């Protein structure tokens, strides 16, 4: 048996190079970017020393270079003057349909052609929430590049834990439009737990209560020796500080007897409502003085007591999710070490009080509820790009919603249950209904209810190319896989003949690949030349990644796991790839990588199996 090669402690085999990676908290109200610098995770400020970037984008028209925008504080100030073109809280519209977004919206939503994605009519044309978010991401990316310089390897972007597949996909699409390489989407409460857990190093069970501007999450995590294991998560992806603002706004509209206000007045009232909410977190009264048009000034006072009475039902609503998360985690409240408050809306004293009463413990509020998510994301990004090769930290997260299929009678059959650890793959077998049937339709939904109509439609799939057989003879195995980003992929195969069926995906909400491609082309940052250059560059990076990884693998395991013929074949494939990668032909490089993958698939499989076997034998050595 060959001896294992072990390098000297503290030294890695390859020269260490610090890669630039960032963590982004793409929030409903504010967004942040953070990075790890000299071992310290910190948020990055703009040139005015502001860390928060208001998630507000003002569209200012369009020229041949694309649309012109203003992002952040200035856009926020202009919101009431230019309400239709200034998009606030776009995150609430991510991955949503026209029916979902119409509630409370002060924008003019339309759909275009075959697209199911609602767009906002602005001076710069019809704009989707994905494009609005991509403008915010671009601004944060630029901020990071200005502050840090150099090449950006990638970003970890956070999403609410309770985001469904369409909302996650929309976030990833926005990153793509912004030209960001997404290392991973991670859940906001998990990111907060990383920041908190690594700070305190406290092992045990932690509850993260995250009430943001537009979303609510509760996650229960167990921290053991660097492993953050999410036991359960629950929440509401349409409940947050914005809803508190709406409640106050409704109160103002009623008290001031305003019917059907114009967009600019409504924006102004919403802003005042927010001001009142923030003030009432500190003081006992708030005095309104509002210009409601026609020379009329409305004056009134709101006491904290009355404010709390108004919002109490909303806060209590979060407890339903808390109860469910506790049950799914299968723990007693006594097992909980602490409850950590995250998100700007946890500044409201009533929130702290109600949560404290529910968990019978004083919630922890000493972390900056705005920054903690971005900081956790930056730490994870730093690890994922390999800046800390000896890092033992690992996040094991779950899927928040059950994944099901439509069966006869409009019922949903669950394939993957909520709070299953990801990645996860489950197969389901189907058969044909008629003789000679060659195609089949499958409807995938997310949600907990029995009726399809009560669940969220994710996509409809059409399987084609089933070999003709008598009814019931075909066995089509459909595999649903949720990856580490929480995103679903589906594949299908006819088992008796081994035929791979082709799948056509029609997402129920979200942009098609074609739409994204068009947006990329339309976008000012990517003229056609830029797109081609970028694609070539990405392919070359992928090629060098493959070559580097393979050479390391050959050094490590080539002699042990391969015959000399197999080694020669792989070496030759690598040489060919190196050669092709130097030329400027993206397509040729892509094909060559695929060829290399084919030649090395067996080797990769063997290596993975060996490392699985070694993982546990290493463990038993340690135990001795």
């Amino acid at each position: 048996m060959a001896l294992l090669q072990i390098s000297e402690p503290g030294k890695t085999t390859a020269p260490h190079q610090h890669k630039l990676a960032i963590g982004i908290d793409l929030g409903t109200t504010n967004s942040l970017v953070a990075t790890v610098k000299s071992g310290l995770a910190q948020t990055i400020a703009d040139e005015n020393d502001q860390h928060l970037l208001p998630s507000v984008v003002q569209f200012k028209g369009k020229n041949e270079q694309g649309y012109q925008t203003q992002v952040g504080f200035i856009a926020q100030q202009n919101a009431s003057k230019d309400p239709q073109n200034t998009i606030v809280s776009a995150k609430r519209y991510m991955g949503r349909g026209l029916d979902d977004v119409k509630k409370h919206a002060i924008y003019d939503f339309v759909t275009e052609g075959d697209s199911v994605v609602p767009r906002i009519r602005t001076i710069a044309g019809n704009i989707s929430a994905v494009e609005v978010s991509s403008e915010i991401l671009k601004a944060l990316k630029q901020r990071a590049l200005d502050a840090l310089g150099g090449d950006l390897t990638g970003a970890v972007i956070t999403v609410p834990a309770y985001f469904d597949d369409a909302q996650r996909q929309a976030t990833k699409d926005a990153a793509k439009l912004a030209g960001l390489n997404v290392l991973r989407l991670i859940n906001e409460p998990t990111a907060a737990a990383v920041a908190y857990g690594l700070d305190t190093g406290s092992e045990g069970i932690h509850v993260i209560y995250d009430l943001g501007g537009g979303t609510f999450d509760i996650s229960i995590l167990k921290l053991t020796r660097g492993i953050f294991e999410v036991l359960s998560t629950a929440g509401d992806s349409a409940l947050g500080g914005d809803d508190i603002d709406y409640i106050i706004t409704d109160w103002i509209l009623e008290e001031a007897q305003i019917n059907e206000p114009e967009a600019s007045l409504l924006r102004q009232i919403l802003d005042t409502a927010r001001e009142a909410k923030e003030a009432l977190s500190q003081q006992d009264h708030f005095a309104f003085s509002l210009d409601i048009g026609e020379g009329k000034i409305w004056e009134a006072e709101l006491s904290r007591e009355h404010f709390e009475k108004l919002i109490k039902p909303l806060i209590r609503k979060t407890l339903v999710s808390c109860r469910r998360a506790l049950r799914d985690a299968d723990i007693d409240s006594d097992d909980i070490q602490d409850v950590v408050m995250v998100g700007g809306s946890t500044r409201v004293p009533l929130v702290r009080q109600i949560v404290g009463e529910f968990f019978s413990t004083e919630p922890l509020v000493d972390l900056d509820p705005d920054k903690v998510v971005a900081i956790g994301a930056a730490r994870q990004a730093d690890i994922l790009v390999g800046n800390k090769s000896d890092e033992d930290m690992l996040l094991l997260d779950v899927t928040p919603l059950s994944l099901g299929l439509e069966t006869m009678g409009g019922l949903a059959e669950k394939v993957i249950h909520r709070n299953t650890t990801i990645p996860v793959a489950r197969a389901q077998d189907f058969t044909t209904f008629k003789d000679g049937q060659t195609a089949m339709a499958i409807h995938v939904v997310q949600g907990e209810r029995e009726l399809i109509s009560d669940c969220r439609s994710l996509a409809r799939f059409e399987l084609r190319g089933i070999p003709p057989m008598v009814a019931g003879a075909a066995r089509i195995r459909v595999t649903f896989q949720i990856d580490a980003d929480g995103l679903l992929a589906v594949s299908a195969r006819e088992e008796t003949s081994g035929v791979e069926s082709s799948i056509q995906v029609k997402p129920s909400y979200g942009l098609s690949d074609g739409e994204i491609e068009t947006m990329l082309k339309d976008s000012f940052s990517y003229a056609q030349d830029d797109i081609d250059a970028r694609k070539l560059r990405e392919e070359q990076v992928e090629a060098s990644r493959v070559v580097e990884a393979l050479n390391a693998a050959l050094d490590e395991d080539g002699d042990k796991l391969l015959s000399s013929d197999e080694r020669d074949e792989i070496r030759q494939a690598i040489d060919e790839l190196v050669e092709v990668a130097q030329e400027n032909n993206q397509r040729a490089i892509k094909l060559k990588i695929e060829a290399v993958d084919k030649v090395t698939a067996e080797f990769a499989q063997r290596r993975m199996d060996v490392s699985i076997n070694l993982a546990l034998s290493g463990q038993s050595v340690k135990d001795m």
Partner: protein
Amino acid sequence: MKNNLDTGADNYFSVLGLPISFDIDKTTLTQNYHELQKTVHPDKFANAGDLERRLSVQKAAWINDALETLKNPLRRSIYLLSLHGIELSDNDTSIDPAFLMEQMELRENLSEVVAKDDPLSELDVILDDVNARIKRTINHLGGLFSKLLSESDSENDDSLLKEAKAEVLKMQFLNRLQEECLNKEEDLADQF
């Protein structure tokens, strides 16, 4: 009878470093699971090529499935049966009629809970009953599988397997009922 116990192929028990048994050492299970995920999780392959990234997602999913299977008594039982060459099918009707009658009664009680004065505590009574039944079934299964896996002579295997399968079918019913109780509890709690 097909028997997959001695094929030496990777099964969920061996991959997680445990002996094939109904009784599970949860501490070892969790520890081994963590060690394995530290090796195969996609986060450890964020810098690798596409091929290895895909492979790591598959392996990590497989190990997650192994953990879920061994952690859950029902799934563990079904898996043990499959290692003995017994697969459950969806339309298996070989269930004890007396048991079915009991189930129907429990279900009826459950559907009447909403109309009661104190539905939540009524529901608790049913849930306690269901949980007790589940516990009994688990104990029974534990006994059956330990006989099956320890005895060297395989004379009684067929009847033991048959009995185990019958218990697993009951357990499926009870688990579904438990889930319905919990859903009902959630619905009721939401109203307050």
